[in-house]
């Protein structure tokens, strides 16, 4: 566990309960402080109080379009990195996804996501 991760806060926005738990467990084991939200509305609320250093955002959220939450999150804090995490690959080509700092396609192997979080928090 590297010193840089200690105390860095990550917010995970995901409407799939089991997946959300998986991300939380995996990232906590990496040494991050993790908060979770199951909807876009909750994400904006939690991010205000939790003040995460980075957000992992699922695009296809139940109540709201993830891309709209992305712009709201960026409006809240412009410099905070947001990683779009989706089962779809085609959002990569959507203009509104460009304001995200990284785009990770969902996978059972979470190493890509972890690498992206690490590198974004280091820069």
């Amino acid at each position, binding site marked *: 566990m590297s010193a840089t991760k200690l105390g860095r806060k990550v917010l995970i926005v995901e*409407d*799939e309960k*089991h*997946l959300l*738990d*998986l991300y939380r*467990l*995996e990232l906590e084991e990496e040494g991050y402080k993790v908060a979770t939200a199951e909807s876009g509305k909750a994400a904006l609320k939690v991010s205000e109080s939790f003040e995460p250093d980075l957000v992992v955002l699922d695009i*296809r*959220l*139940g*109540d709201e379009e993830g891309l709209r939450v992305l712009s709201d999150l960026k409006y809240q804090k412009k410099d905070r990195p947001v990683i779009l995490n989706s*089962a*779809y690959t085609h959002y990569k080509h959507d203009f509104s996804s460009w304001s995200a700092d990284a785009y990770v396609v*969902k*996978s*059972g*192997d*979470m190493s890509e996501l972890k690498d992206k979080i690490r590198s974004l928090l280091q820069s």
Partner: protein
Amino acid sequence: MDSSKCPLDLPEGTDCWINSILDGKSLDEISLPRDRVSSCVKCPYFKESVQRSMGRRSSDLLMSQAVSRLLSILSDYNAELSGMATDLHHKIEKLTVLKTVAEAFLKAANLKDCLWVFLTGVTAGEAYGFNRAAVFLVNQPRRALEGQLGIGHVRLEDFKDTWDSIKKSRLTFQEMIRRIIDQPDLPENHLTELVRKIYIPLTPQFGLLPKAVLERRSFTVPELTEEHITDRQMLSVFGGRPCAIVPIISRDSALGVVVVDNPVTGADISQEDISMLETLSYLAASKINNLILNNQLEVRVAELEHVYNLLQDNQEYLLETERLVEAGKLATTIAHEIKTPLVTIGGYSRRALKAFERGDNITRDLQILVEEIARLEWITSGVLDYSKKRTLNLRNVNLNSIINETLEIVQGKLTYGNIDVVLQLSESELIVKADKDRLKQVLFNLLDNAIQAMPDGGTLTVSTGTDGGYEWFKIVDSGCGMSQKTIDKLFQPFFTTRSSGVGLGLPVSQRIVADHGGYLEVSSELEHGSVFTVNLPVHRQEMKG
């Protein structure tokens, strides 16, 4: 009474010639107009004068001279009358030909038959008797005359055999015409073959054929040369002999020309022949015009049919494309729906493996794996349900008991979701002929949707009843309700407002209900909830597989 005057006074002031003879005038001095002879022989004075003169020698001589003169006049007159009778007979024959041809035109179903009738009229010995005839019609879009049909022969030596065989066959003109109309395939001949190759632009410099059409008048030439016709093939057949060219004129346009000649008999083509031919052409023209219009109409209809077929093919192609798009959408949705549990399974499997290696408890991980795999199965069977047609296993089913059984399945969700259930079931037993499992599936889908619509709890009312030949059950929730936009898309496959779910529950339910001969109704009000009603027919004779 003045004996020198005509007692009948015909015409006024005329001398009575018999009295003049009796008075001693010489025959040369007497004018005896032919038209008066018939009146004189009936005249009572004439008879009286003849009787009076009997026995007078001088008068007898005069009388015999007068009678001989009378006889000669009458004989001339008779010859003339018989000539007129022949003429009249000839004219009647030609009129009969016209009548036969006119009747045949009425029966001619196509242009080919019509032209055959026309040219047979022109060439048949009993009819107009030209040795040879060819017809050319105007092709309006190409502004040209095109050869259509010829009757007769290219080589003169071929005529004899044809004429002999016609003679032997003893076919009358009427019979010939009837054969043309009745025969499905008319014989081809060399003249027609040749004539069909002839194409003459419709401008005067190309000779008398276009000229006859453009000026709408007939031409006769004593010897057809290249001055009259520029087309070489035409010249090779008709050149060097007398020939007539008559336009075929309908009320408003010249449709073509008919060319006739008499290469075998060498008979003169008289002005009378031309005017009869003009009459026949005029008769043919209106029928030809109709058939040309009919042909054009047929071509248009064929074109339209072609376009229609193209459209139909296109429509099938579009439908196929639509199906492919739907299939594509299905594939995308399924891919996404399957991807999420697969990612979860992948993630937890890796965790479980690591935990197992460490000797940690992996029960929780395995529990999640089981749940996610169950979800995959659920998605898969949903897709199969939608895409496969199943045979209905029809039994008498009690609606009330199906409702109770299904409510038991969702009891956990109802309690957990803080949802009160109100049951308003019909007191009498409601029996429908249905596939119990499929009907339960419909009920489950509707109950699940109702529960999803009330995330903060609420009231679920389930009722049953009978109405107008249908037995129904109704699921009413007090949830968020739906906008009209959502209702409109509700039964479209893959439409979903939920984060999880394939969007197939309602389309599948609708299909099941329809397979039972019933229908599914929906009404909703935003913030007040939705009502789903399943109507099933009371009596159903036959079920769809």
